[in-house]
């Protein structure tokens, strides 16, 4: 059985699911075997009501990953202090086992754009994003995980490779990394890179959580494949192969199935989680076998 609040300060190295309001009744009634649930922080920033009541019930049963989608860490402008305070309140209230946000920006002077927008990777943006990560970790009083983005464009200004950029932020701030394997596939195809080579270079010792999701596919103006990070379907076969490869490097890591649009019946999500958990179980067996050979 899952023991949410007693399980310490990290997520179990199991498969988790995004918590969707339409599934909560079924989850509380059936208490399915799930390693953890993840919620978008911004959906729980009201004062009270059903969202908090149901999240309290989930947290009493399962470990929680709190995933922010609105902090705009990659913005040129200062972080929103009111939003940091809201995050702090949520973290204090629910004591999640993990808190993560994105390497992206969403807010500019005229308001919040509700999308995870890309930034160039330069010495200047590296200093800037690192300062923001420092500020977040100070404000919420804990270490965060920073997620690699899915991107559709590149910037002429960029002088630093994405992995080096993420690694340097982690080195400077002490934050961990959230490795979104679907984002790796999306960005790699979109920018004609080898996704397996990306995983092989990624600093796996910094990875605290993995995300998996489904993508959409279209073509760009030149007719090249353009993958879209859509979170509206099962994890694609190529992403799942890349996930196996990733777990081969990282060992068992908490793995979230993200499915935010066209949300299916809970049983469909559960099947996706089971598929990922089989890979984690196998990795745990391999790790234990290596350990006992050494012993």
């Amino acid at each position: 059985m899952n023991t949410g609040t007693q399980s310490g300060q990290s997520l179990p190295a199991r498969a988790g699911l995004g918590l969707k309001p339409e599934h909560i009744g079924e989850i509380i009634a059936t208490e399915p075997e799930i390693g953890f649930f993840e919620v978008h922080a911004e959906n729980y920033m009201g004062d009270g009501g059903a969202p908090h009541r149901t999240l309290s019930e989930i947290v009493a049963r399962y470990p929680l990953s709190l995933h922010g989608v609105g902090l705009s860490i990659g913005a040129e402008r200062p972080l929103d202090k009111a939003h940091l305070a809201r995050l702090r309140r949520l973290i204090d209230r629910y004591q999640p086992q993990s808190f993560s946000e994105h390497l992206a920006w969403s807010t500019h002077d005229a308001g919040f754009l509700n999308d995870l927008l890309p930034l160039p990777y330069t010495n200047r943006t590296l200093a800037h994003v690192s300062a923001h990560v420092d500020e977040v970790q100070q404000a919420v009083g804990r270490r965060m995980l920073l997620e690699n983005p899915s991107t559709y464009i590149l910037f002429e200004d960029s002088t630093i490779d994405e992995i080096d950029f993420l690694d340097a932020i982690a080195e400077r701030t002490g934050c961990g990394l959230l490795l979104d394997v679907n984002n790796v596939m999306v960005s790699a195809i979109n920018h004609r890179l080898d996704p397996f080579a990306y995983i092989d270079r990624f600093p796996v010792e910094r990875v605290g959580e993995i995300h998996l999701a489904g993508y959409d596919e279209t073509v760009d103006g030149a007719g090249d494949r353009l993958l879209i990070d859509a979170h509206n379907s099962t994890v694609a076969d190529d992403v799942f192969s890349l996930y196996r490869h990733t777990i081969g490097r990282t060992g068992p890591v908490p793995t979230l199935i993200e499915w935010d649009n066209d949300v299916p019946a809970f049983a469909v999500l559960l099947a996706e989680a089971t598929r990922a958990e089989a890979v984690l179980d196998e990795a745990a067996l391999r790790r234990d076998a290596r350990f006992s050979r050494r012993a």
Partner: protein
Amino acid sequence: MDQNTFASALLDATRPLPDGVTSARGEADAARFAVYRNNVAVSLSKALSQRFPVLRRLVGDDFFNGMARAFIATTLPDSPVMFAYGDSFPDFVAGFAPAAALPYLADTARLEAYWTRAYHAADIVPLDVAALARLAPERLGSATLIAHPAAALVRSKFSIGTIWQAHQGDEVRVQTVLEPESIVITRPDIEVAVHVIAEADAVFAAALLRGDSIGDAAAEAFDTDPAFDFGRAIVGLVALGMFAGVADQQGDMR
């Protein structure tokens, strides 16, 4: 790259791509940038659609999306808390010329905006009738009632409560009677409640919500309708969960 320039190009498809945007081919590809344009427009429209589902059903998806995009062009969210986006959408709808033939839309949107506010409001046990009854009768007239954080009142020239109710199920009953209606939104516990109340009761409720004493509020309601039933009105509003407490000259009490 300046993020304000990037954002302006996202929000206005007639603008050129921002300088410095490229691809692995070394090209500034409009189809790639369009993914971000589309994400912003679709995600903000979707946020409005989730907050104003009855409005969407009343006008249809295409009209709703057009109206939403016109609003988005004037008003971006001022915070990442998306369920709060659209507080000013009802006012925008009221002035949206293509919707002028449907004058009940704006008040229907007001009802929906208050519904979301009530859904996320603080968990406060409403004042109950027994607590009100403990107030000494001679002090009732000068006492004021403290609004519950979920409570709201919409007074409309149109039967928006009936319209809203008709659109809660999968099957929509066509609503043709358009007459004035006043709606109270409360959340006594976890479920948001929407009630149609009588006109004199609405006058009374509006006065109480703006902080008038119970006596003054009742006098205004009697002026509106000599048949105003004070006892039924105050017990009814309190029972719906409109108030969080009573304040009289002796200080606040619950």
